[in-house]
């Protein structure tokens, strides 16, 4: 409880400082980020198009995603943020009509190369979904699921404990690991899904609007968690909430819907991708400025 309170007050001061600065960001974070410099690239996208049944959903995305960064994808509804995110761990493969064109490199390897097994790729590139989706099993079994299917049965209890601690959930659930995960609150369920994801020791964690179904307190906990997790993992997050992008991310990509001449087709296009500070304080593109200042979208 005390932990909750302190987290909450911490957020309040941050929020207040952000309000004074005119936007919801944390100045101290920017200082640290400014010196991040050149980093190892996790993903390199070169002209990536995504099509569903031959209709373009996202067009010509080129961007690099760096190691141990939180990279945020923002933009209005329907701009293809989630579509793009789902390309990164080949979840789009589950939709038979989906097609990815262009070059998408993961640590320099073509993620869509003929020898790449999507199942193996997903072990390295985990995903947390918009709505918490715990399995209808005990809390313990939820976290142990990943290691078990991967055949990592040694030291399972320690793995589960470490993952739950990593997701800042251990203290709340350590006495009821055998209880059904459906008994947890929405925020706890989402942290359980994060614990489940980090239990398989991925390299990257993709988060698809992980806080959109949660209340502000749970959201704050997950945002704090993201900042801790990026020490160990690289995180890509899709969010509708610009304040959230500003609070947690190091780099931000702004996508927008683009229409063709006769307004029959629409697709998502990357407008600007830069350090979060720059996107929110001094964007290069007028459309980004209008969006982050709340004039459109």
């Amino acid at each position: 409880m005390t932990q909750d309170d302190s987290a909450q007050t911490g957020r309040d001061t941050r929020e207040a400082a952000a309000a004074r600065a005119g936007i919801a960001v944390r100045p101290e974070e920017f200082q640290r980020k400014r010196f991040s410099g050149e980093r190892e690239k996790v993903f390199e996208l070169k002209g990536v198009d995504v099509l569903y049944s031959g209709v373009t959903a996202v067009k010509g995305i080129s961007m690099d995603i760096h190691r141990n960064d939180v990279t945020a994808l923002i933009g209005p509804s329907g701009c293809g943020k989630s579509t793009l995110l789902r390309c990164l761990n080949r979840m789009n493969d589950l939709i038979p009509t989906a097609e990815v064109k262009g070059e998408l490199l993961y640590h320099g390897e073509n993620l869509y190369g003929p020898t790449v097994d999507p199942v193996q790729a997903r072990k390295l590139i985990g995903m947390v979904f918009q709505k918490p989706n715990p399995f209808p099993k005990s809390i313990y079994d939820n976290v142990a699921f990943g290691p078990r299917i991967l055949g990592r049965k040694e030291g399972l209890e320690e793995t589960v404990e470490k993952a739950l601690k990593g997701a800042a959930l251990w203290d709340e659930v350590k006495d009821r690991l055998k209880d059904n995960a459906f008994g947890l609150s929405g925020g706890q369920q989402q942290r359980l899904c994060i614990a489940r994801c980090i239990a398989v020791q991925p390299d990257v964690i993709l988060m698809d609007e992980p806080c959109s179904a949660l209340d502000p307190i749970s959201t704050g906990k997950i945002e704090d968690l993201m900042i801790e997790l990026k020490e160990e993992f690289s995180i890509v997050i899709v969010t509708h909430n610009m304040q959230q992008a500003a609070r947690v991310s190091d780099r931000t990509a702004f996508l927008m819907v683009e229409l063709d001449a006769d307004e029959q087709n629409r697709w998502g296009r990357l407008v600007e991708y830069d350090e979060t500070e720059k996107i929110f304080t001094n964007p290069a593109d007028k459309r980004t400025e209008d969006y982050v200042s709340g004039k459109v979208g």
Partner: protein
Amino acid sequence: MAGGDPGVARNRLATAGARATTQAMLRDQPRGDVIRNAVFAGLLLLAVLIALAGLAALLIQAFLKGSSALSLDLITNPPSTAFPEKAGYRPAIIGSLQLIAGVILFVVPVGIGAALYLEEYADNTRWWNRLIEVNIQNLAAVPSIIYGILGLAFIVRGPLDLGFILAAGSLTLALLVLPMVIIAAREAVRAVPDSIRQGSLALGATKWQTIRTQVLPASIPGIATGVILAVSRALGETAPLLLVGATVFVTFDPTPFGTDGYSAMPVQIFNYALRPQEEFQALAAAGIIVMLVVLLAMNSFAIWLRNRYEQRW
């Protein structure tokens, strides 16, 4: 007063309008509406009563006629044409138990397998998969006597050539209820939300691991309910069994592959009911009571199982 302030005039108009509406609402309902409502409700109630009356008449009649013959002898004694007071259902009960055991053995793996294929693997945009789907619905509605003919032609004789044995009857009944099981299992599998499958796949599970460890366990209560209902249907079927060798009169305990014939509860009831003597009529009624109790118990168990273990997502 009407001196031209448009605001006042408008207010008055609004008040008058509101009053008219309220009074229309408070007025008595037209008599014709009241009568029509009552007649319609009465007709619907009558429909319910007709349905219930059939069941009630069946139960009352069976209990009145059969209660005199209800005793443990009914279950433990073999049938007899000479001594109705000592005759029972023993071979028929044993035959029915073996029949439904065979049905379960066949129907559970095949039904679940077919349901998983159709729900998880088949591409519904292909016309042949949609054709299969429609035909499974049709198969569930095919009259049971047709399955009897199929069993006779393909299982008893023809390609399988098993002869008139209990296992052949079991297989025929299994084919009869298989579409029911497939439909129930598909519904159970479909009820598992996609978010669970995606959550599992996103952790690096293969499709088969996802099905085995997430989809199947979550759909087992629904599948079990479907299997129980299907088995209770198989238990009550008579027509196809007559075609595939359920001999009407058997005094020994049948075995799955014995060639001396076998019997089943509904067939034995049919046999007793055909006899003119009052005592055999009572015996048939008592058999009906036993079957009804078993069927109602099975169906109740299925409903309980569904309500108890149904996963709410």
